[in-house]
């Protein structure tokens, strides 16, 4: 049990700002107890106020920005995935186009030769068809020859 004299001394130091934490603990303990001297009772409120103030607790929640914290890692991973995905997709498409040797050609040389022959014959027949019509043009020449004079005749004779 602290003597009142001790407490008075410590209080004196306390108000001068000279008391140590340990002495202040003793003050707190003293004023918390029931045996407070009547002439010191006025200080009880002070120390009980400090004790009460210390009991206050933070009841709110702490909200930390979750997204922001992981932002760099996730965004980098996601962008790599997207780029890799696009790259593979297009690459695959290109390869599909390039790798199929389907140019509409024949693999068997005999068939190829036959088909070529057929195609050429067809071309030939088209050309023959068109040239056969050209014989009609001879008629024009006969009529022009009739009216063009000796010059053309001599030419003809010269040629002959």
């Amino acid at each position, binding site marked *: 049990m602290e003597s009142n004299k001790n407490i008075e001394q410590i209080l004196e130091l*306390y*108000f*001068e*700002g*000279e008391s140590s*934490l340990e002495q*202040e603990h003793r003050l707190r303990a003293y004023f918390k107890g029931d045996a407070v001297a009547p002439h010191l009772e*006025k*200080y009880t*409120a*002070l120390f*009980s*106020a*400090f004790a*009460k*103030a*210390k009991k*206050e*607790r*933070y*009841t*709110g929640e*702490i*909200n*930390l*920005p*979750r997204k922001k*914290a992981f932002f760099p890692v996730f965004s980098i991973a996601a962008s790599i995935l997207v780029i890799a995905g696009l790259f593979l997709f297009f690459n695959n498409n290109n390869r599909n186009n390039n790798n199929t040797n389907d140019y509409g050609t024949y693999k068997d040389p005999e068939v190829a030769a036959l088909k070529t022959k057929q195609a050429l014959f067809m071309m030939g027949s088209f050309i023959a068809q068109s040239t056969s019509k050209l014989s009609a043009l001879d008629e024009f020449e006969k009529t022009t020859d009739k009216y063009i004079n000796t010059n053309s005749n001599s030419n003809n004779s010269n040629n002959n």
Partner: protein
Amino acid sequence: MNQKDFLTSVTPFQDKIYRLARRLLTSEEEAQDATQEVLLKLWSKNKQIKKYRNAEAFAMTMTKNYCYDTLKAKRSNNVSLVHSNYRDNSYDTVNDTEVSDSVNWVYKLMKDLPEQQQLILQLRDVEEYTNAEIAEQLGINEGTVRTALSRARKTIREGLLEKHRYGIK
């Protein structure tokens, strides 16, 4: 350090941050906002936190700065009200009835102290930091802490004695 580690590491002093803010600011809501804000700032400086010798001291300093800023902003907001002569007297009457209790009277006395003294009294007499720790947190020297502490305690004593005398009368 991930979020869980961070939250565990701040648990020991998150109440201290709240109480300090509660002492300096007017309402519980403001104090909670302050706590949240300070912890958020602390989290954003997560990587540098190891560089600081003492995360707790750093947090207390941040709390002090945050509260000062808030109070300053509020004071500048209040200027317009003062000019239009709308004084809110109801606040004081409410307060007067509240402080009928002598413990609350101490709080009221603490509130009337200059900000720095409030801060130092809170850190020393409620949170029980040493003068050296307080000096580090506030960026002032120990002598200043001791002087301010003495002034704050004496002011409160006077207030208490006055109240006590009224009681007798």
